[in-house]
C-alpha cells in the first residue's frame, strides 16, 4: 500500500456533485458517492485516499469551496 502524503476532507453537505474535482485529480483519488446528500447530488468523496499527494488541485477547481486539503510535513 502506497503511503499517503496528503488527505482531503469534503464538505458533503455543500457538494453539488459537479465532478470537476474528480477530473482535476492527477492520482484518481476522488470518486462520486453512490449515496446522495440532502440536495440529491452524488457528492464527491476520497474513494482511494492512499493515493492522495496533497496537490490541492481538487480544492482549487471546486466552485463551492467544499474541499479542505491536508499534507503531512514529513
Amino acid at each position: 500500500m502506497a503511503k499517503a502524503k496528503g488527505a482531503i476532507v469534503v464538505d458533503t453537505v455543500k457538494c453539488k456533485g459537479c465532478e470537476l474535482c474528480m477530473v482535476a485529480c492527477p492520482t484518481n483519488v476522488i470518486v462520486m458517492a453512490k449515496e446522495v446528500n440532502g440536495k440529491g447530488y452524488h457528492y464527491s468523496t476520497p474513494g482511494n485516499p492512499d493515493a492522495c499527494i496533497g496537490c490541492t488541485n481538487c480544492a482549487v477547481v471546486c466552485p463551492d469551496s467544499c474541499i479542505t486539503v491536508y499534507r503531512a510535513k514529513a
Partner: protein
Amino acid sequence: MDIKDIIKDENVIYKKSAVLTDNEMHYCPGCTHGVVHKLIAEVIEELGIQDTTIGIAPVGCAVFAYDYLEIDWQEAAHGRAPALATAVKRLMPEKMVFSYQGDGDLAAIGTAETIHACNRGENIVMVFINNGIYGMTGGQMAPTTLQGMKASTCPFGREPQQDGFPLKITEILATLPGTSFVTRQSCHTAASVRKTKKALIKAFKNQQAGKGTSLVEVVATCSSGWKQSPTKSNDWMVENMFPFYPLGDLKDE
C-alpha cells in the same frame, strides 16, 4: 502515514477563504462563478484589504454575490456597475473598488458604461465573466454568443446575417488608453485557476498603484445554459470558446 495522522489542523494547506461566507451558493453545479468568487475572496484575504474593499454586484446570476463575500457591496442597475464603481472610487479614493459583471451585463446593456469607464481610465478593477449566454434568464443569446452556437433565442445557432457577430469587447477595451491591464483567463483546470488568481492579484495591485482600469475577463462555462454536464462544458469551452476568445494578456502597461 495514516490518513488520521495527516488530517490535523497544522497540516492544512488549502481551505475555504475566511472572506467567503458560510452561505451555500445558489449557482448550478460546476458554475465558474463559484470559482471566481473564491479567487476574489482569496486575493482580498492575501492582500489584507477586506475592510477597505467595495464590490459592485451586477444583474445576472452573480446578483447575489453580496451573500457570499464578507466585504461591502453595492448593487448596480443592469449594466451600470462601472458607472457606480466610478462614483464609489471617486468619492472614496482610499477604498479598493471592483465591479463583477457577466457578458450580458458588461457587453450588452452596459456597453456604454463599460467603454466610457475604461476610456476615462477610472482606477477600478473590472471582473468580466464571459460564458456567451444569458445564464440567469434561461440561456438567451448574448452579444458574446459564438457564431453557430445554440441558445434559447437562436435555437438553430447564431446566424450573423440575422443576429450579428459575436462581440470581442475585451479587445475593444484593450485599445483604449485608459486601461492599464487587460487580460483573458479561464478556470477550467487547476493551473488556469491559479493563473486567473495571479491576474486578479495584479489587477488589484494596479489599483493600489493608481494605474487606471484593469479588466480581467474569465471565459466561463454555463452548463445549465449550454445543456451539458460541467465536465463536458469545460471540454466544449476549450474546443469552441478558446479559438475565438484566446487566453492571455492583451495589454499590460
